[in-house]
Protein backbone atom coordinates (compact mmCIF):
# COMPACT_ATOMS: atom_id res chain seq x y z
CA UNK A 1 0.00 0.00 0.00
CA UNK A 2 1.44 3.35 -0.97
CA UNK A 3 1.50 6.44 1.18
CA UNK A 4 -1.49 8.07 -0.52
CA UNK A 5 -3.64 5.04 0.28
CA UNK A 6 -2.89 5.42 3.95
CA UNK A 7 -3.97 9.01 4.42
CA UNK A 8 -7.40 7.90 5.69
CA UNK A 9 -5.56 6.44 8.69
CA UNK A 10 -5.47 9.91 10.23
CA UNK A 11 -9.14 9.73 11.03
CA UNK A 12 -8.71 6.62 13.13
CA UNK A 13 -5.05 6.67 14.09
CA UNK A 14 -4.72 6.98 17.81
CA UNK A 15 -1.20 5.79 18.59
CA UNK A 16 0.95 7.87 16.27
CA UNK A 17 0.09 10.51 13.72
CA UNK A 18 2.53 12.55 11.67
CA UNK A 19 1.19 15.22 9.34
CA UNK A 20 3.51 16.86 6.85
CA UNK A 21 6.46 16.63 9.21
CA UNK A 22 9.73 18.13 8.07
CA UNK A 23 12.89 17.95 10.11
CA UNK A 24 15.96 19.85 9.05
CA UNK A 25 19.41 19.97 10.61
CA UNK A 26 22.11 22.50 10.06
CA UNK A 27 25.52 21.01 9.42
CA UNK A 28 28.71 23.03 9.44
CA UNK A 29 30.80 22.52 6.34
CA UNK A 30 34.56 22.74 6.64
CA UNK A 31 37.61 22.28 4.50
CA UNK A 32 41.23 22.07 5.51
CA UNK A 33 42.59 24.88 3.35
CA UNK A 34 43.86 28.07 4.95
CA UNK A 35 41.32 30.09 3.00
CA UNK A 36 38.56 27.76 4.13
CA UNK A 37 39.58 28.08 7.78
CA UNK A 38 39.52 31.87 7.62
CA UNK A 39 36.18 31.80 5.82
CA UNK A 40 34.77 29.51 8.50
CA UNK A 41 36.03 31.84 11.20
CA UNK A 42 34.25 34.84 9.69
CA UNK A 43 31.20 33.31 8.10
CA UNK A 44 30.79 29.57 8.72
CA UNK A 45 29.29 27.68 5.85
CA UNK A 46 26.23 25.76 6.91
CA UNK A 47 24.35 23.17 4.96
CA UNK A 48 20.73 22.28 5.61
CA UNK A 49 20.16 18.55 5.83
CA UNK A 50 16.58 17.42 5.42
CA UNK A 51 16.24 14.35 7.63
CA UNK A 52 12.47 14.18 7.04
CA UNK A 53 10.70 15.98 4.25
CA UNK A 54 6.93 16.40 4.48
CA UNK A 55 6.37 12.98 6.00
CA UNK A 56 2.86 11.85 6.91
CA UNK A 57 1.73 8.54 8.32
CA UNK A 58 -0.45 7.12 11.04
CA UNK A 59 -0.22 4.10 13.33
CA UNK A 60 -3.23 2.62 15.05
CA UNK A 61 -3.28 1.31 18.59
CA UNK A 62 -2.20 -2.31 18.85
CA UNK A 63 -0.17 -2.29 15.63
CA UNK A 64 3.34 -3.71 15.38
CA UNK A 65 5.13 -1.56 12.86
CA UNK A 66 8.62 -1.90 11.46
CA UNK A 67 10.31 1.34 10.55
CA UNK A 68 13.17 0.70 8.19
CA UNK A 69 15.50 2.46 5.84
CA UNK A 70 19.14 2.77 4.89
CA UNK A 71 21.71 4.54 7.09
CA UNK A 72 20.94 8.24 7.42
CA UNK A 73 17.37 7.79 6.16
CA UNK A 74 15.83 9.47 9.22
CA UNK A 75 14.78 6.50 11.38
CA UNK A 76 16.34 7.61 14.65
CA UNK A 77 15.29 11.18 13.97
CA UNK A 78 11.68 10.02 13.69
CA UNK A 79 11.99 8.12 16.96
CA UNK A 80 13.37 11.22 18.67
CA UNK A 81 10.59 13.37 17.25
CA UNK A 82 7.95 10.93 18.48
CA UNK A 83 9.44 10.89 21.95
CA UNK A 84 9.74 14.68 22.15
CA UNK A 85 13.54 14.63 22.23
CA UNK A 86 13.68 16.78 19.11
CA UNK A 87 11.12 19.11 17.59
CA UNK A 88 10.06 19.18 13.95
CA UNK A 89 10.96 22.11 11.72
CA UNK A 90 7.41 21.97 10.35
CA UNK A 91 4.32 19.79 10.65
CA UNK A 92 2.28 18.25 13.44
CA UNK A 93 3.03 15.21 15.54
CA UNK A 94 0.56 13.48 17.79
CA UNK A 95 1.48 10.51 19.96
CA UNK A 96 -1.31 8.80 21.90
CA UNK A 97 -3.39 11.87 21.16
CA UNK A 98 -0.84 14.19 22.75
CA UNK A 99 1.72 16.65 21.48
CA UNK A 100 5.25 15.49 22.40
CA UNK A 101 6.27 19.14 22.66
CA UNK A 102 3.44 20.51 24.77
CA UNK A 103 2.48 17.45 26.78
CA UNK A 104 5.84 15.75 27.13
CA UNK A 105 5.50 14.90 30.81
CA UNK A 106 2.05 13.34 30.50
CA UNK A 107 3.16 11.46 27.38
CA UNK A 108 6.21 9.98 29.08
CA UNK A 109 3.95 8.23 31.59
CA UNK A 110 2.39 6.32 28.68
CA UNK A 111 5.32 5.98 26.30
CA UNK A 112 8.44 3.83 26.47
CA UNK A 113 11.57 4.59 24.47
CA UNK A 114 14.62 2.42 24.01
CA UNK A 115 17.68 3.21 21.93
CA UNK A 116 19.71 0.09 21.33
CA UNK A 117 23.02 1.93 21.42
CA UNK A 118 22.31 3.68 24.69
CA UNK A 119 21.31 2.15 27.99
CA UNK A 120 18.99 3.89 30.41
CA UNK A 121 20.23 1.63 33.21
CA UNK A 122 22.57 2.93 35.89
CA UNK A 123 25.96 1.66 34.83
CA UNK A 124 27.57 1.16 38.23
CA UNK A 125 24.60 -0.33 40.06
CA UNK A 126 22.79 -3.67 40.10
CA UNK A 127 19.90 -3.85 37.64
CA UNK A 128 17.25 -3.87 40.38
CA UNK A 129 18.53 -0.53 41.65
CA UNK A 130 17.84 1.07 38.25
CA UNK A 131 14.33 -0.36 38.41
CA UNK A 132 13.81 1.13 41.87
CA UNK A 133 15.12 4.47 40.63
CA UNK A 134 12.62 4.38 37.78
CA UNK A 135 9.79 3.60 40.20
CA UNK A 136 10.47 6.86 42.06
CA UNK A 137 11.17 9.08 39.04
CA UNK A 138 8.13 7.83 37.11
CA UNK A 139 6.08 7.78 40.31
CA UNK A 140 4.89 4.24 39.61
CA UNK A 141 2.40 2.98 42.24
CA UNK A 142 3.90 0.22 44.39
CA UNK A 143 1.40 -2.49 43.37
CA UNK A 144 1.78 -1.71 39.65
CA UNK A 145 5.57 -1.75 40.00
CA UNK A 146 5.55 -5.09 41.83
CA UNK A 147 3.21 -6.64 39.28
CA UNK A 148 5.22 -5.42 36.28
CA UNK A 149 8.51 -6.39 37.90
CA UNK A 150 7.24 -9.91 38.45
CA UNK A 151 6.02 -10.18 34.85
CA UNK A 152 9.17 -8.84 33.16
CA UNK A 153 11.41 -10.87 35.47
CA UNK A 154 9.60 -14.02 34.44
CA UNK A 155 9.15 -13.30 30.75
CA UNK A 156 12.62 -11.93 30.15
CA UNK A 157 14.27 -14.44 32.45
CA UNK A 158 15.90 -11.76 34.59
CA UNK A 159 15.86 -13.47 37.98
CA UNK A 160 19.59 -14.11 38.00
CA UNK A 161 20.45 -10.71 36.60
CA UNK A 162 18.64 -8.41 38.99
CA UNK A 163 21.52 -8.25 41.44
CA UNK A 164 24.21 -7.99 38.76
CA UNK A 165 25.89 -4.69 37.94
CA UNK A 166 24.84 -3.31 34.57
CA UNK A 167 28.46 -2.94 33.50
CA UNK A 168 28.94 -6.67 34.03
CA UNK A 169 26.06 -7.74 31.80
CA UNK A 170 26.54 -9.08 28.29
CA UNK A 171 24.95 -7.05 25.52
CA UNK A 172 22.01 -9.43 25.26
CA UNK A 173 21.44 -9.38 29.01
CA UNK A 174 21.70 -5.61 29.06
CA UNK A 175 19.13 -5.26 26.30
CA UNK A 176 16.75 -7.54 28.20
CA UNK A 177 17.21 -5.50 31.35
CA UNK A 178 16.70 -2.26 29.40
CA UNK A 179 13.54 -3.63 27.86
CA UNK A 180 12.28 -4.71 31.27
CA UNK A 181 12.92 -1.26 32.69
CA UNK A 182 11.11 0.26 29.75
CA UNK A 183 7.97 -1.71 30.60
CA UNK A 184 7.82 -1.01 34.34
CA UNK A 185 5.44 1.93 33.95
CA UNK A 186 3.06 -0.04 31.66
CA UNK A 187 3.59 2.00 28.48
CA UNK A 188 0.86 1.82 25.84
CA UNK A 189 3.30 2.56 23.04
CA UNK A 190 6.93 1.56 22.84
CA UNK A 191 9.49 2.94 20.44
CA UNK A 192 12.51 0.73 19.92
CA UNK A 193 15.47 1.99 17.94
CA UNK A 194 17.67 -0.93 16.90
CA UNK A 195 16.79 -3.15 19.88
CA UNK A 196 18.47 -6.20 18.34
CA UNK A 197 21.70 -4.38 17.56
CA UNK A 198 24.64 -6.67 18.21
CA UNK A 199 22.57 -9.46 19.76
CA UNK A 200 23.37 -13.11 19.09
CA UNK A 201 20.67 -15.42 17.70
CA UNK A 202 19.50 -16.66 21.09
CA UNK A 203 19.22 -13.20 22.62
CA UNK A 204 17.53 -11.92 19.48
CA UNK A 205 15.05 -14.80 19.48
CA UNK A 206 14.15 -14.06 23.09
CA UNK A 207 13.63 -10.39 22.44
CA UNK A 208 11.51 -10.96 19.34
CA UNK A 209 9.31 -13.51 21.11
CA UNK A 210 8.82 -11.15 24.01
CA UNK A 211 7.91 -8.18 21.84
CA UNK A 212 5.43 -10.24 19.86
CA UNK A 213 3.90 -11.48 23.05
CA UNK A 214 3.35 -8.08 24.68
CA UNK A 215 1.92 -6.80 21.41
CA UNK A 216 -0.44 -9.75 21.05
CA UNK A 217 -1.47 -10.27 24.66
CA UNK A 218 -1.28 -6.78 26.12
CA UNK A 219 -2.15 -4.76 23.03
CA UNK A 220 0.99 -2.65 23.38
CA UNK A 221 1.66 -0.70 20.19
CA UNK A 222 5.21 -1.29 19.02
CA UNK A 223 7.27 0.72 16.56
CA UNK A 224 10.67 -0.79 15.92
CA UNK A 225 13.61 0.12 13.73
CA UNK A 226 16.27 -2.34 12.70
CA UNK A 227 18.64 -3.06 9.87
CA UNK A 228 17.85 -6.73 10.21
CA UNK A 229 14.96 -7.17 7.81
CA UNK A 230 14.41 -10.81 8.64
CA UNK A 231 13.85 -9.82 12.27
CA UNK A 232 11.46 -7.08 11.25
CA UNK A 233 9.48 -9.37 9.00
CA UNK A 234 9.12 -11.86 11.79
CA UNK A 235 7.96 -9.27 14.28
CA UNK A 236 5.93 -6.69 12.43
CA UNK A 237 2.70 -6.78 10.48
CA UNK A 238 3.44 -3.62 8.60
CA UNK A 239 6.57 -1.95 7.36
CA UNK A 240 7.16 1.73 6.83
CA UNK A 241 10.19 2.31 4.68
CA UNK A 242 11.90 5.64 4.67
CA UNK A 243 14.45 6.80 2.17
CA UNK A 244 15.94 10.24 1.69
CA UNK A 245 13.60 11.61 4.33
CA UNK A 246 10.45 10.43 2.54
CA UNK A 247 8.16 7.46 3.15
CA UNK A 248 9.01 5.20 0.24
CA UNK A 249 6.77 2.29 1.17
CA UNK A 250 3.97 1.65 3.65
CA UNK A 251 2.37 -1.77 3.68
CA UNK A 252 3.01 -5.42 4.36
CA UNK A 253 6.13 -7.43 3.56
CA UNK A 254 4.61 -9.39 0.70
CA UNK A 255 3.69 -6.13 -0.99
CA UNK A 256 7.28 -5.03 -0.58
CA UNK A 257 8.47 -8.12 -2.41
CA UNK A 258 6.14 -7.39 -5.30
CA UNK A 259 7.69 -3.97 -5.81
CA UNK A 260 11.00 -5.50 -6.79
CA UNK A 261 9.34 -8.31 -8.74
CA UNK A 262 7.94 -11.53 -7.35
CA UNK A 263 11.39 -12.82 -6.47
CA UNK A 264 11.44 -16.48 -5.53
CA UNK A 265 14.16 -18.92 -4.62
CA UNK A 266 14.06 -22.39 -6.17
CA UNK A 267 16.37 -24.99 -4.66
CA UNK A 268 16.77 -28.11 -6.81
CA UNK A 269 18.58 -31.22 -5.59
CA UNK A 270 19.76 -33.42 -8.47
CA UNK A 271 20.42 -37.16 -8.35
CA UNK A 272 23.46 -36.71 -10.59
CA UNK A 273 26.04 -34.04 -11.41
CA UNK A 274 23.93 -32.30 -14.06
CA UNK A 275 22.75 -28.71 -13.65
CA UNK A 276 19.13 -28.07 -14.64
CA UNK A 277 18.51 -25.25 -17.08
CA UNK A 278 15.84 -23.14 -15.43
CA UNK A 279 14.52 -20.55 -17.84
CA UNK A 280 14.31 -16.87 -16.82
CA UNK A 281 16.26 -17.67 -13.67
CA UNK A 282 19.67 -16.87 -12.26
CA UNK A 283 21.82 -19.61 -10.77
CA UNK A 284 22.97 -18.36 -7.39
CA UNK A 285 24.90 -21.37 -6.10
CA UNK A 286 25.74 -24.98 -6.89
CA UNK A 287 27.16 -27.38 -4.35
CA UNK A 288 27.04 -31.18 -4.08
CA UNK A 289 24.18 -31.45 -6.54
CA UNK A 290 22.11 -28.76 -4.79
CA UNK A 291 21.43 -25.79 -7.06
CA UNK A 292 19.81 -22.57 -5.95
CA UNK A 293 18.10 -20.31 -8.49
CA UNK A 294 16.46 -16.93 -8.26
CA UNK A 295 13.44 -16.47 -10.45
CA UNK A 296 10.93 -13.68 -10.94
CA UNK A 297 7.45 -15.17 -10.92
CA UNK A 298 5.95 -12.07 -12.55
CA UNK A 299 7.02 -13.56 -15.90
CA UNK A 300 5.82 -17.10 -15.24
CA UNK A 301 3.55 -18.70 -12.67
CA UNK A 302 4.39 -21.37 -10.08
CA UNK A 303 2.21 -23.73 -12.10
CA UNK A 304 4.37 -23.27 -15.19
CA UNK A 305 7.51 -23.62 -13.14
CA UNK A 306 6.28 -26.88 -11.57
CA UNK A 307 5.26 -28.22 -14.97
CA UNK A 308 8.68 -27.46 -16.37
CA UNK A 309 10.45 -29.04 -13.42
CA UNK A 310 8.35 -32.20 -13.68
CA UNK A 311 9.76 -32.71 -17.15
CA UNK A 312 13.41 -32.44 -16.09
CA UNK A 313 15.09 -35.80 -15.51
CA UNK A 314 17.16 -36.54 -12.40
CA UNK A 315 15.52 -34.17 -9.91
CA UNK A 316 15.57 -35.62 -6.39
CA UNK A 317 13.96 -32.72 -4.55
CA UNK A 318 12.56 -29.24 -5.17
CA UNK A 319 12.06 -26.44 -2.66
CA UNK A 320 10.36 -23.16 -3.59
CA UNK A 321 10.55 -20.31 -1.12
CA UNK A 322 10.24 -16.53 -0.92
CA UNK A 323 13.39 -14.52 -1.56
CA UNK A 324 14.95 -13.34 1.71
CA UNK A 325 13.59 -9.94 2.59
CA UNK A 326 17.17 -8.71 3.03
CA UNK A 327 17.73 -9.22 -0.67
CA UNK A 328 14.53 -7.40 -1.59
CA UNK A 329 15.48 -4.48 0.59
CA UNK A 330 19.04 -4.38 -0.72
CA UNK A 331 17.66 -4.13 -4.23
CA UNK A 332 15.34 -1.30 -3.15
CA UNK A 333 18.15 0.59 -1.45
CA UNK A 334 20.21 0.30 -4.62
CA UNK A 335 17.34 1.70 -6.65
CA UNK A 336 16.87 4.60 -4.25
CA UNK A 337 20.53 5.59 -4.36
Amino acid at each position, binding site marked *: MLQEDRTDIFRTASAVSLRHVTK*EFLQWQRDNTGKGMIRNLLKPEKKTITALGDVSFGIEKGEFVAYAGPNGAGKS*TTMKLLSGML*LPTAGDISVLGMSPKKE*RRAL*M*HRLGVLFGNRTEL*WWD*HPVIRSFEWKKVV*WNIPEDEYRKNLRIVTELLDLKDLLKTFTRELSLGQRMRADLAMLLLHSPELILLDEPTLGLDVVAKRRMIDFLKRINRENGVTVVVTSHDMDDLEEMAHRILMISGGKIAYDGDFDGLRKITGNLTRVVITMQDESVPDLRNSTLLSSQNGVHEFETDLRGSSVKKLMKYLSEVDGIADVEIKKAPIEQVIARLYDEWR
Partner: protein
Amino acid sequence: MVDKLTIRRILGLYGIAAKMDLFWLLRDTKYALAAIIADLIANLATVSSVFLISVRFGGIGGMSPDEVLFMMAYSTMITGIFILFGAANNFHISRIIGRGQLEHLFIQPIPLKAQLATMGFAPFTGAINFVVGIALLVVAAIRLRIRVTPLWTILLVAFLLATMVTIIARAYLVSTLAFYAPVAAEEISTKAIEGTWLLSTFPLSGMPAFVQIPLLTILPEGLMAWFPALCLLGRPPLGLGSCYPMLYAIILAVFAAAIFRKGMKYYVTRGSNRYLPYGFRR
Protein backbone atom coordinates in the same frame (compact mmCIF):
# COMPACT_ATOMS: atom_id res chain seq x y z
CA MET B 1 -1.86 12.20 33.78
CA VAL B 2 0.88 14.52 34.97
CA ASP B 3 1.89 14.12 38.58
CA LYS B 4 2.28 17.48 40.27
CA LEU B 5 5.73 18.64 41.18
CA THR B 6 5.12 19.10 44.88
CA ILE B 7 7.74 19.67 47.57
CA ARG B 8 7.20 16.04 48.56
CA ARG B 9 7.86 14.91 44.99
CA ILE B 10 11.06 16.99 44.80
CA LEU B 11 12.21 15.59 48.13
CA GLY B 12 11.47 12.13 46.72
CA LEU B 13 13.77 12.88 43.78
CA TYR B 14 16.51 14.09 46.14
CA GLY B 15 15.87 10.97 48.19
CA ILE B 16 16.37 8.56 45.30
CA ALA B 17 19.52 10.46 44.22
CA ALA B 18 20.82 10.13 47.78
CA LYS B 19 19.93 6.44 47.84
CA MET B 20 21.77 5.80 44.57
CA ASP B 21 24.76 7.68 46.00
CA LEU B 22 24.73 5.60 49.18
CA PHE B 23 24.58 2.37 47.21
CA TRP B 24 27.42 3.60 45.01
CA LEU B 25 29.46 4.21 48.16
CA LEU B 26 28.62 0.79 49.58
CA ARG B 27 29.35 -0.88 46.23
CA ASP B 28 33.06 -0.55 46.86
CA THR B 29 33.48 1.39 50.09
CA LYS B 30 37.26 1.15 50.13
CA TYR B 31 37.55 2.67 46.66
CA ALA B 32 34.89 5.29 47.38
CA LEU B 33 36.55 6.39 50.63
CA ALA B 34 39.91 6.67 48.86
CA ALA B 35 38.31 8.88 46.21
CA ILE B 36 36.58 11.05 48.83
CA ILE B 37 39.76 11.49 50.88
CA ALA B 38 41.83 12.29 47.76
CA ASP B 39 39.26 14.94 46.82
CA LEU B 40 39.38 16.39 50.32
CA ILE B 41 43.19 16.48 50.40
CA ALA B 42 43.34 18.22 47.02
CA ASN B 43 40.91 20.92 48.14
CA LEU B 44 42.55 21.39 51.54
CA ALA B 45 45.95 21.66 49.86
CA THR B 46 44.66 24.54 47.75
CA VAL B 47 43.16 26.26 50.77
CA SER B 48 46.01 25.63 53.20
CA SER B 49 48.69 26.91 50.81
CA VAL B 50 47.06 30.35 50.77
CA PHE B 51 46.48 30.22 54.53
CA LEU B 52 50.10 29.25 55.26
CA ILE B 53 51.36 32.16 53.15
CA SER B 54 49.12 34.52 55.10
CA VAL B 55 50.44 33.09 58.42
CA ARG B 56 54.04 33.44 57.23
CA PHE B 57 53.57 37.06 56.21
CA GLY B 58 51.09 38.06 58.90
CA GLY B 59 48.21 38.38 56.48
CA ILE B 60 47.60 39.16 52.80
CA GLY B 61 46.67 42.55 51.44
CA GLY B 62 45.17 43.88 54.61
CA MET B 63 43.45 40.61 55.58
CA SER B 64 44.66 38.95 58.78
CA PRO B 65 45.50 35.21 58.79
CA ASP B 66 42.20 34.50 60.58
CA GLU B 67 40.27 36.50 57.99
CA VAL B 68 42.07 34.55 55.26
CA LEU B 69 41.08 31.35 57.08
CA PHE B 70 37.47 32.57 57.13
CA MET B 71 37.62 33.22 53.39
CA MET B 72 39.17 29.78 52.78
CA ALA B 73 36.37 28.22 54.86
CA TYR B 74 33.81 29.98 52.68
CA SER B 75 35.62 28.76 49.56
CA THR B 76 35.72 25.19 50.89
CA MET B 77 31.99 25.31 51.63
CA ILE B 78 31.32 26.47 48.06
CA THR B 79 33.46 23.63 46.70
CA GLY B 80 31.55 21.30 49.01
CA ILE B 81 28.13 22.48 47.80
CA PHE B 82 29.30 22.18 44.20
CA ILE B 83 30.31 18.56 44.74
CA LEU B 84 27.30 17.82 46.96
CA PHE B 85 24.73 18.84 44.35
CA GLY B 86 26.66 18.45 41.12
CA ALA B 87 27.77 14.83 41.05
CA ALA B 88 26.02 13.99 37.77
CA ASN B 89 27.59 16.60 35.48
CA ASN B 90 24.45 18.66 36.01
CA PHE B 91 26.61 21.73 36.66
CA HIS B 92 29.06 20.75 33.93
CA ILE B 93 26.11 20.79 31.58
CA SER B 94 28.20 21.07 28.39
CA ARG B 95 29.30 17.47 29.00
CA ILE B 96 25.67 16.33 29.02
CA ILE B 97 24.90 18.33 25.87
CA GLY B 98 28.11 17.39 24.07
CA ARG B 99 27.62 13.71 24.78
CA GLY B 100 24.08 13.77 23.39
CA GLN B 101 22.63 12.93 26.80
CA LEU B 102 20.41 15.98 27.25
CA GLU B 103 17.63 14.81 24.98
CA HIS B 104 17.54 11.51 26.86
CA LEU B 105 16.55 13.46 29.97
CA PHE B 106 13.37 14.39 28.10
CA ILE B 107 12.07 10.84 28.38
CA GLN B 108 11.63 11.30 32.13
CA PRO B 109 8.16 12.55 33.08
CA ILE B 110 9.46 15.41 35.18
CA PRO B 111 10.52 18.96 34.24
CA LEU B 112 14.09 19.29 33.02
CA LYS B 113 14.83 21.88 35.71
CA ALA B 114 13.76 19.46 38.44
CA GLN B 115 15.91 16.72 36.95
CA LEU B 116 18.98 18.95 36.73
CA ALA B 117 18.44 20.23 40.26
CA THR B 118 18.10 16.81 41.86
CA MET B 119 20.06 14.31 39.76
CA GLY B 120 23.50 15.26 41.07
CA PHE B 121 22.71 15.14 44.78
CA ALA B 122 25.41 13.03 46.46
CA PRO B 123 25.25 13.48 50.24
CA PHE B 124 27.32 10.40 51.04
CA THR B 125 30.21 10.71 48.60
CA GLY B 126 30.11 14.47 48.09
CA ALA B 127 29.52 16.01 51.51
CA ILE B 128 32.98 15.83 53.01
CA ASN B 129 34.24 19.17 51.64
CA PHE B 130 31.09 20.92 52.80
CA VAL B 131 31.44 19.48 56.31
CA VAL B 132 35.12 20.44 56.48
CA GLY B 133 34.19 23.91 55.21
CA ILE B 134 31.68 24.30 58.05
CA ALA B 135 34.32 23.14 60.56
CA LEU B 136 36.85 25.66 59.21
CA LEU B 137 34.18 28.39 59.32
CA VAL B 138 33.42 27.63 62.96
CA VAL B 139 37.13 27.78 63.85
CA ALA B 140 37.60 31.05 61.95
CA ALA B 141 34.43 32.58 63.43
CA ILE B 142 35.61 31.72 66.95
CA ARG B 143 39.08 33.14 66.34
CA LEU B 144 37.58 36.29 64.79
CA ARG B 145 34.98 36.52 67.60
CA ILE B 146 32.15 36.88 65.09
CA ARG B 147 28.72 37.23 66.70
CA VAL B 148 26.77 34.53 64.94
CA THR B 149 23.22 35.91 65.01
CA PRO B 150 20.25 34.54 63.02
CA LEU B 151 20.59 37.53 60.64
CA TRP B 152 24.29 36.79 60.08
CA THR B 153 23.42 33.13 59.38
CA ILE B 154 20.76 34.17 56.88
CA LEU B 155 23.31 36.45 55.22
CA LEU B 156 25.81 33.58 55.05
CA VAL B 157 23.22 31.35 53.38
CA ALA B 158 22.28 34.17 50.98
CA PHE B 159 25.92 34.72 49.99
CA LEU B 160 26.50 31.00 49.53
CA LEU B 161 23.39 30.84 47.36
CA ALA B 162 24.47 33.87 45.32
CA THR B 163 27.92 32.37 44.76
CA MET B 164 26.43 29.05 43.67
CA VAL B 165 24.00 30.78 41.32
CA THR B 166 26.90 32.72 39.81
CA ILE B 167 28.95 29.55 39.27
CA ILE B 168 26.06 27.61 37.74
CA ALA B 169 24.82 30.52 35.63
CA ARG B 170 28.30 31.03 34.20
CA ALA B 171 28.65 27.32 33.48
CA TYR B 172 25.27 27.23 31.73
CA LEU B 173 26.03 30.42 29.83
CA VAL B 174 29.25 29.11 28.30
CA SER B 175 27.74 25.63 27.90
CA THR B 176 25.23 27.09 25.46
CA LEU B 177 28.04 26.86 22.91
CA ALA B 178 27.72 23.07 23.12
CA PHE B 179 24.27 23.32 21.55
CA TYR B 180 25.90 24.73 18.43
CA ALA B 181 29.17 22.79 18.49
CA PRO B 182 28.80 19.67 20.67
CA VAL B 183 32.21 18.23 19.82
CA ALA B 184 34.26 21.36 20.36
CA ALA B 185 32.41 22.57 23.46
CA GLU B 186 31.86 19.32 25.38
CA GLU B 187 34.34 20.36 28.11
CA ILE B 188 33.75 24.10 28.02
CA SER B 189 31.98 24.28 31.39
CA THR B 190 34.91 22.48 33.03
CA LYS B 191 37.24 25.12 31.61
CA ALA B 192 34.94 27.92 32.74
CA ILE B 193 34.54 26.63 36.28
CA GLU B 194 37.76 24.85 37.11
CA GLY B 195 40.10 26.84 34.88
CA THR B 196 39.93 29.81 37.20
CA TRP B 197 39.05 27.98 40.42
CA LEU B 198 42.48 28.62 41.97
CA LEU B 199 42.08 32.31 41.35
CA SER B 200 38.87 32.29 43.33
CA THR B 201 40.66 31.13 46.49
CA PHE B 202 43.14 34.01 46.46
CA PRO B 203 42.50 37.11 48.63
CA LEU B 204 42.32 40.05 46.26
CA SER B 205 42.55 42.71 48.97
CA GLY B 206 46.10 43.72 48.16
CA MET B 207 45.49 43.95 44.43
CA PRO B 208 45.06 47.20 42.55
CA ALA B 209 41.54 48.16 41.42
CA PHE B 210 42.28 47.37 37.76
CA VAL B 211 42.78 43.73 38.81
CA GLN B 212 39.94 43.64 41.34
CA ILE B 213 37.23 45.19 39.15
CA PRO B 214 37.55 42.77 36.20
CA LEU B 215 37.51 39.90 38.72
CA LEU B 216 34.21 41.17 40.08
CA THR B 217 32.61 41.81 36.71
CA ILE B 218 33.98 40.07 33.61
CA LEU B 219 35.34 37.03 35.46
CA PRO B 220 33.47 36.71 38.76
CA GLU B 221 36.33 35.00 40.60
CA GLY B 222 36.31 37.72 43.25
CA LEU B 223 32.71 36.78 44.03
CA MET B 224 33.56 33.15 44.69
CA ALA B 225 34.94 33.77 48.20
CA TRP B 226 36.82 37.02 48.63
CA PHE B 227 33.99 39.54 48.25
CA PRO B 228 31.33 37.57 50.19
CA ALA B 229 33.82 36.80 52.98
CA LEU B 230 34.63 40.48 53.44
CA CYS B 231 30.90 41.31 53.39
CA LEU B 232 30.28 38.75 56.13
CA LEU B 233 33.14 40.31 58.08
CA GLY B 234 31.38 43.67 57.75
CA ARG B 235 33.84 45.21 55.26
CA PRO B 236 32.43 45.04 51.70
CA PRO B 237 35.28 46.07 49.39
CA LEU B 238 35.38 48.81 46.75
CA GLY B 239 32.30 50.46 48.26
CA LEU B 240 30.06 48.18 46.20
CA GLY B 241 27.74 47.14 49.03
CA SER B 242 26.82 43.75 50.41
CA CYS B 243 24.01 43.20 47.93
CA TYR B 244 26.37 43.28 44.93
CA PRO B 245 26.96 39.48 44.78
CA MET B 246 23.20 38.87 44.90
CA LEU B 247 22.53 41.42 42.17
CA TYR B 248 25.33 40.02 40.03
CA ALA B 249 23.97 36.49 40.52
CA ILE B 250 20.42 37.50 39.55
CA ILE B 251 21.48 39.44 36.43
CA LEU B 252 23.84 36.68 35.29
CA ALA B 253 21.21 33.97 35.98
CA VAL B 254 18.51 35.79 34.00
CA PHE B 255 20.91 36.41 31.11
CA ALA B 256 22.26 32.84 31.17
CA ALA B 257 18.73 31.37 31.31
CA ALA B 258 17.67 33.37 28.24
CA ILE B 259 20.78 32.43 26.25
CA PHE B 260 20.62 28.77 27.34
CA ARG B 261 16.95 28.54 26.38
CA LYS B 262 17.74 30.00 22.96
CA GLY B 263 20.56 27.49 22.48
CA MET B 264 18.35 24.59 23.53
CA LYS B 265 15.62 25.69 21.14
CA TYR B 266 18.17 25.75 18.33
CA TYR B 267 19.44 22.30 19.33
CA VAL B 268 16.06 20.59 19.39
CA THR B 269 14.83 22.23 16.21
CA ARG B 270 17.90 22.70 13.99
CA GLY B 271 20.91 21.18 15.74
CA SER B 272 22.64 18.07 14.55
CA ASN B 273 21.86 15.34 17.05
CA ARG B 274 24.47 12.81 16.05
CA TYR B 275 26.23 11.44 19.08
CA LEU B 276 28.31 8.67 20.49
CA PRO B 277 27.02 6.99 23.64
CA TYR B 278 30.17 7.71 25.65
CA GLY B 279 30.83 11.22 24.39
CA PHE B 280 32.88 12.71 21.65
CA ARG B 281 36.61 12.42 21.38
CA ARG B 282 38.91 14.11 18.95
